């Protein structure tokens, strides 16, 4: 039986989810303890929103391209 290849979109989904969680976490931490390096328009909290966006895209890809358990 030929092995079924996991879709690249599934890997992308996993990576984006992990990145989203890390960036979201860093954004929240930055709200509590401001980062030393000043960035312009920090008040937009881009990290928080971008982190959420990455998690959403990542989860959609994981669900849509989840490897099938059996292939006959």
């Amino acid at each position: 039986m030929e092995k079924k290849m996991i879709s690249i979109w599934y890997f992308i989904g996993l990576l984006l989810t992990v990145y989203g969680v890390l960036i979201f976490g860093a954004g929240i931490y930055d709200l509590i303890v401001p980062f030393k390096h000043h960035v312009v328009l920090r008040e937009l909290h881009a990290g928080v929103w971008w982190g959420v966006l990455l998690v959403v895209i990542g989860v959609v890809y994981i669900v849509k391209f989840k490897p099938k358990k059996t292939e006959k």
Partner: protein
Amino acid sequence: MQNPGTLVSLSGVDTAIVAIYFLVVLTIGFYLKRFTKTGNDFFMAGRKMTAWIAGLSFVAANLGALELMGWAASAYQYGILATHWYWIGAIPAMLFLAIIMMPFYYISKTHSVPGYLQLRFGNSSRSLSAVCFGFMTILMSGINMYAMALVMKVVLGWDIHFSIWVSSITVGVYVALGGLFSAIFNEVLQFVLIWLGALLIPIIGLIEAGGWGKMVAKIHQNFQGDFTHLWRSIGSFSDNPMGIHWTGIVFGLGAIISMGYWTTDFLVVQRVLAAKDLRSAKLAPIIGAGFKMFVPFIVILPGLLGLAVLPGLVGEAQAVATGGHSFNEILPLMMARYLGPGLLGLGITALIAGFMSGMAGNVSAFATVWTYDIYKPLRKKQLSDGHFVKVGRWTTILGVLVSIGTAYLVMQFASIMDYVQALFSFFIAPLFATVLLGMLWKRATSAGGFWGLLAGTVSSIGMWAWVKVDPGALRIIALSPNAKAMAENMYRALWSCLICAAVTIIVSLFTNPKPESELNGLVRSCTVLPSEKHLKLTQKPIFWAGVVFAVFIVLNIIFW
């Protein structure tokens, strides 16, 4: 803490994001090794890629880190004129590849562009093209590697040797394990990361500038000259920051350089050859063109925003002399300006991903051309498919090592960097004329193809050397003494392509052509192409090519 003399410093979470990226690309390489058993798997990704995967990989192989950094810097230097390299300098050529040329590459079942030349013109043309391509690819790979390491040193303070070895070995390992499968899959991943890592810069930049209109007003306030119109300022060589005339853009860039690069540079064409069927192979460059059209949003717009919010950046030499910042650093400067913890790691990962996708493109294409077009013809006896896969894997490693050697060579002789653009006009521009005449003119002969290609390449190198020895020759080659290096490259490419075409036609008229029966699948008038009449309108590649072309026209009118 930020190292003195560097632009930005990474926090713990940024470093974790970069480290996870390296881990994932290597994991994909190890995972795909089990699917890479035959030569068709290793060199052609089994010819089973969907149009979307092949199309994204096609455009990602070109979207290297130097592309991101270099064109953002060019946008700061030349304004919106740099967008021509993404629109007229890419879109028509990608659509031309899809609709006109792809059927012949695909139906002939060639494994490479030199492979097509062998089928059409014989071994001499194939060997000349393969050797030129191999040389150009390795040199480009080494130059890119050095430039990327230099960027990492300036931006992050990373040791130059560390950057070169770690990134190159990672690329070497995943390409050697999974071949083109691995290169293509990682390129798609890298493409997504490049977009998500770089997209916030123009978004936050536009918010800071107050929108497009206010950004343009600020640029006019900060600088003299027209930095915000695509066509209005190129009616004369002296009216625009690039010193170029519209004829150079349309005929040199649009008709020759871009056609040559996008239709005959095997680095990009290889990705489309991996498509699962002819329709997918035709759709892939169209999908690639659709995405390519919007790359200026993450590359050119940050440069323009820099003109509005960071005036005062200077050229490299002046920056070194004064200790200020050069416009070559505009992209990392914008990253440091807008990206906080985590986002900065994603932005740096986008740069590293860009470097890796470009390098993987180089080494996988080099491995294929070396194995099938240089090594195989030299071995007379019949060898197994497994043998060629093994040669491909070792060639990948060897290609990476030679590229590293080239990078160290560039480190010793930095002036080699100046010659990068010239390489394209040496090898790619004449190749376009040879392939195009081969596909469209059945009278073109083997001798015509070879001598035309040789004459085009030699004349291009000759014109470059002439201007080096006598700068006054610029007036003749580029039609103006005011022409900058980029304009010179455009015109040299135009002349070398015309010389190649003229020699091919003249020699062909005096030599015997192949019988038509041998040209089936290679020449348009001798090939019956598969009908697409049974497809719905929205399934036809020509329909989507029309849509992309219409958007391309509208964008040019908007930014006229």
